[in-house]
């Protein structure tokens, strides 16, 4: 193997009693890149992160982080990773400053050095004013920022972020994104999980869609979009016209159409590069369908996601 992978897993499996959380997850994240694990709740994203960060042990398969086997040498893995979990992994009863100083000591930063590094990070993450308040009085965004700061006391080679911006307002989310980009620019490999397609699109060079405990699709955001083609959609004036619209769209796109009766919309994904919007409108009009809105555009990652991970009967 010539490429060095910061995170590399093969056939990773984990069961919790009856629940088969991971069913053979393969990951290969090159060093210095940002990789997003994208998937709905229960897809296995958090389980993957907990396995890779040595919090739980796999039931099958292997995983290496920076070359260290997570099951055989968890201590070596812990020396090179930073982890920001889904629950705030800081102590709510301590102040922000006390938290950072504690984690600095536990990572063998000497007294003065640890204190200086803690102050530096408090400033970097805009937490100076709140530094001496107990963390339980922080807002969600502040807590998440502190959590991220705590993972960066010693610059990790691989940083794991489990849904780093879930539930945050746009301003807090942007601050986290900026910090993650800065880290990646300095060479840290980042593996993050997210339910937000926008987040994967904006941050990651590499997206892995996780569905039902497996990596279902892998690629750059652009590759995923190209792979799924474009999305043609028509909104009609009355319910009765919907099946006919679906049929026309399906024929034009060369794929089965999906109905959204609530919006009186029919849509289909096309990989035909010659299809144009005027042609769609003309054909619908010729069929006597009362079209009120029509679009042909690149799919959003949401649609990629829906198409590639939705239950099969809904997919074109």
């Amino acid at each position, binding site marked *: 193997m010539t490429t060095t992978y910061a995170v590399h897993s093969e056939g990773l499996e984990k069961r919790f009693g009856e629940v088969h959380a991971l069913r053979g997850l393969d990951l290969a994240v090159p060093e210095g890149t940002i990789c997003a694990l994208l998937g709905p709740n229960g897809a296995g994203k958090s389980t993957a992160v907990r396995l890779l960060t040595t919090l739980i042990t796999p039931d099958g398969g292997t995983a290496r982080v920076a070359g260290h086997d997570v099951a055989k040498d968890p201590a070596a893995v812990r020396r090179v990773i930073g982890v920001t979990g889904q629950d705030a992994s800081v102590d709510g009863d301590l102040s922000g400053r006390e938290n950072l100083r504690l984690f600095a000591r*536990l990572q063998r930063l000497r007294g003065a050095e640890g204190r200086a590094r803690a102050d530096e990070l408090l400033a970097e993450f805009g937490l100076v004013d709140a530094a001496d308040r107990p963390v339980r009085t922080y807002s969600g965004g502040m807590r998440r920022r502190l959590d991220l700061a705590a993972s960066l006391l010693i610059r990790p080679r691989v940083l794991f972020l489990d849904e780093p911006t879930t539930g945050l307002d746009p301003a807090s989310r942007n601050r986290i994104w900026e910090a993650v980009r800065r880290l990646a620019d300095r060479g840290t490999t980042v593996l993050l999980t997210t339910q937000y397609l926008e987040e994967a699109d904006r941050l990651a060079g590499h997206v892995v869609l996780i569905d039902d405990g497996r990596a279902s699709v892998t690629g750059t955001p652009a590759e995923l979009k190209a792979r799924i083609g474009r999305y043609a959609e028509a909104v009609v004036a009355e319910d009765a016209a919907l099946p006919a619209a679906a049929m026309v769209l399906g024929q034009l796109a060369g794929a089965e159409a999906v109905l959204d009766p609530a919006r009186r919309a029919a849509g289909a994904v096309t990989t035909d590069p010659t299809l144009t919007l005027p042609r769609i409108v003309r054909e619908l009009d010729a069929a006597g369908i009362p079209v009120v809105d029509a679009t042909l555009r690149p799919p959003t990652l949401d649609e990629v996601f829906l198409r590639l991970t939705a239950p099969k009967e809904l997919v074109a």
Partner: protein
Amino acid sequence: MTIIAYDESKGARVALAGRAVVGDGWAMFGRHLQRLRRAPGLFILTQSMPVTMLLFFGYVFGSAVALAGGADYRAYLVPGLLVATAANGIMAGMFQAAADNHRGVMDRFRTLPMSRAAVPIGQAASEVAQAAIGLVPLAAVGYAVGWRIEGGFGPAVGAFGLLLLFRLATAWVGIWLGLAAKSEEAAGQLGGATFMLPMLSGAYIPTAGMTGWLRTVAEWNPISAVSAACRELFGNETAVTAGAAWPVAHPVVASVGWSLLLMAVCVPLAVRRYDKSTK
């Protein structure tokens, strides 16, 4: 920023591990003290309980308890309550460990390259520190209601040392049970039930008067041995009669033995449990 180089040789690893246990344990001890300073409510409550019990038992039940030789019941009760307070390490250890174990911060500790024993060690040390502070008001109120140290300074220091050793041992029992508990609620219920343990011992009432089987159970309860040892070291009335079980007849040795035994069993269990337990 320092990048730490790790020497991979075995001897260096063992030395590093040893330094890690002490250094990380100390850091975790500091964390507990900081938490205590910010949220002292529970600590104050648990400290005021034994004092309330002393007044309650001493004056309400005390009027109905007659000791052989007419010794003062309240003076008899004080060492027993000191031991019962030390035995509270089980309850306190369980509450704290179970609550902590379900906090997100534990995930961070588990993913840091720190000693796997440091988290329970830090908690055990904090339990002992809290107990050392907590014994003071109880002893002071005890003094006010007529209890005296009658065996001299040296043995009295020994008695307090024994109390802290016992607290350390019971804290480890509690930490293990708290980490093993399925939920914080389960730990709370089980922990609350340990309140009864001193009642099944010679802490509050001489075991000599109990019916046969009950007396045997009570006298093999470690709390009985520690109570008898403290009374002996403080120079108080022990109310131990002939025919007492071995631990109560040799209380000081038995107390040290019980404490070491509890730790020999529970320390490895607790550390292993901490290492394994994940949500």
